[in-house]
Every structure is written in structure tokens, then in C-alpha cells.
């Protein structure tokens, strides 16, 4: 032990803080060095030299994460975003963007995991089914609670979640009552739709009821091009 020797050496005056001890600088190894050598195995650099990138993509398919640690992380994300925006719409947009970048990657992974059974969805109903079952199950371990078509608008669909997991510990203050932090999930959905060439806007809206105080509706508004293509597909199918 080099460091122990230097401490016992009669030529080094005693100081409670080893970093300000006199003597040759090389005699005391920096603290950082000893720390990094003792914790050599972590998620990125494991002791077996197999990093997280070397693992098989299916390995974590069924594994679960701690809800509490997610709640703290998501809470910090909301606080971080809140410091950098003015207005609720801006905050929702920021959360939506966070979700969007996750959704892009998630879609790729899910399609890869489906393997040969994966197919390219061309119809609106097909892609929405994919989201309510496959996507939702892979993130939240449950399918979505409902899927409805808007009666008023041709291009609007509603995906219903009775108790969004991301909102389970969040109480939005009264002065921000329009805010719904599930905008994050809306971003994920939007990215999946975009990735499958169904561009549109997805927004999250709170629709509290007596039994379901956290009920959230994701309003999906498709671009005109999607509706146009859908009508063409309907016609060709009928012929």
C-alpha cells in the first residue's frame, strides 16, 4: 500500500485531510482513482467485460423496474422541464418531446422483437390495436382501457387509460388544472404513429370521474394524408 506508507513516513507532516498533505504528489494516489478501481463493475462496464450493449435485446423483455425509482425520475423530469418553460402548453410540449424520443426507439425494438410475425400496419385500426396491446403492454404491463372513434370528427380517435402509471403519484395543483403529465405517454404514442407513417398529433386530457379520478384520454388527430389514404384503401378493398 503506497498510500499507507506515505502516511507512516516521518517526513510527511500530519494533516487530517490527505489531499493537502505535503510530500511528493505521487506518494498519495488521488481519491478518484481508488474509487473507480473498487467499483469497476457497473451497468456499462461489468467485471466480465460485457457491457449493456453486448447483451441480447430480448434479455430484458420480461424484466420489471421499480415503480418508485421511475416515479422519482419522472418527477425530476417534470421539475426540470418546468424550470425551463413558461406556460402549461409549453410544459406539455416538452414532456411530449421527451416521450417522442423514447417512442422512436421503442418502436424499433418492439418490431425487432416481434420477429417474423411483425407486419407493417397500413390501416388506422390496425396501428391503433398495435398501440393499445403491444406497445402498452411492453411499457405498462397491461393493455389500454379503451379505444374510441370520435363521433364528431373523422380524423380523431381516443385512446383511454383509466389510471396512467406516470400520473399515479402526481397531484396537479389547481392553478395548473389543464396540465396532464401523461403528455409524456402521448409523445410515445405520437412517435410510434409517426414511425409507422401515420403522422398526427397526440395530446393527453384529464377526464376525471367519480370512480376514476385519474382517467386520461389520449386524443389522436391524424393528418389529412392519413385519412385520405384510409379512404382509398377502403374503396380498393370494396372493389
Amino acid at each position: 500500500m503506497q498510500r499507507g506508507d506515505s502516511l507512516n513516513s516521518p517526513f510527511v507532516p500530519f494533516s487530517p485531510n490527505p489531499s493537502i498533505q505535503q510530500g511528493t504528489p505521487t506518494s498519495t494516489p488521488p481519491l478518484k482513482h481508488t474509487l473507480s478501481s473498487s467499483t469497476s463493475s457497473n451497468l456499462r462496464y461489468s467485471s466480465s467485460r460485457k457491457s449493456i450493449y453486448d447483451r441480447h435485446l430480448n434479455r430484458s423483455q420480461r424484466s420489471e423496474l421499480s415503480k418508485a425509482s421511475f416515479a422519482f425520475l419522472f418527477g425530476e423530469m417534470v421539475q426540470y422541464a418546468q424550470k425551463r418553460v413558461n406556460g402549461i402548453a409549453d410544459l406539455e410540449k416538452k414532456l411530449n418531446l421527451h416521450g417522442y424520443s423514447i417512442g422512436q426507439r421503442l418502436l424499433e425494438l418492439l418490431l425487432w422483437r416481434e420477429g417474423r410475425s411483425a407486419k407493417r400496419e397500413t390501416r388506422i385500426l390496425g396501428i391503433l390495436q398495435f398501440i393499445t396491446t403491444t406497445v402498452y403492454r411492453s411499457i405498462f404491463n397491461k393493455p389500454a382501457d379503451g379505444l374510441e372513434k370520435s363521433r364528431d370528427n373523422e380524423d380523431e380517435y381516443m385512446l383511454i387509460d383509466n389510471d396512467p402509471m406516470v400520473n399515479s403519484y402526481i397531484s396537479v395543483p389547481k392553478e395548473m388544472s389543464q396540465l396532464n403529465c401523461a403528455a409524456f405517454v402521448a409523445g410515445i404514442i405520437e412517435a410510434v404513429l409517426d414511425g409507422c407513417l401515420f403522422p398526427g398529433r397526440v395530446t393527453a386530457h384529464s377526464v376525471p370521474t367519480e370512480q376514476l379520478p385519474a382517467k386520461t384520454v389520449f386524443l389522436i388527430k391524424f393528418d389529412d394524408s392519413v385519412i385520405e389514404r384510409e379512404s382509398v384503401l377502403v374503396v380498393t378493398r370494396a372493389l
Partner: protein
Amino acid sequence: MVILSLLILNKAGGLIFQRDFNEGLKKLSSNDYLVLAGTFHGVHAITSRISPLRDLGGGGGGGLEVLESDKFRMQCFQTLTGTKFLIFAEPNQPNVDVVVRRVYELYADYVMKNPFYQIEMPIRCEAFERNLVAYIKPKQ
């Protein structure tokens, strides 16, 4: 089993939460609740110092835990961070400590994990109140 009301004090002795769980309880004015909280905080600090025994609870521990009268029983639970939970219950109420633990758990979940809650400030978390009532009401 009857739980009458719950008070939560922050580490400076300020009242951050107050709620009654029974109809027809005598109400104090909001200022009186603050005074009550501050006074209790002081009394608690004194009681944790006057013990003639040494090494009580490793220095920071000890202090008033139960206050009993013929009409009510008050249980105080202090967390390691100094937050105090005061539960007022009927005098013959068993297992109040279990209730306090559960309330602490709800606090840790629905208050501390809420990104809109500012630490040490009054609690205005709708999910916390909802779950608190859902836990205590069926027991009444």
C-alpha cells in the same frame, strides 16, 4: 375503530397538513392549529431533553410519543428527517402505530413523489388526501 384527525408538522414545527376524519368535531381556527403545532413542537423538544437516562434513542430520539386524556389519545410519530405525524384517536383505539406507519407510507408516496410539492411547505396534494380518506374511512 375511530381515528379523529391527523396533523403533519414539518421539521421546523410548522403545520403543513390538518384533516378531520369525523363529522361534528370541534374545530379550531386555522391560526389556533398553527399555534398548537408550534407549541407541540416545543414541548416535544423539551421532553426529548429532560430524560434522566443517558443514550436515549442515540441522541436525536426520544421525546413525547403518546398523550392521553379520557376523551382522546394522541400519538406522535417522528420520522428520521424530523417530520411529525400526530394522530388523534379515541382513547381505547388499538394499533394506532400501525395507522401512523401507513400514513407515513402514503406521505412518502403521494407527497414526496409529487413533482409539484415543495418540501416543507403546506401539503396540497389531492391524491394524498384521496388515498388517506380511502384508507381511514372504511375503518370508522
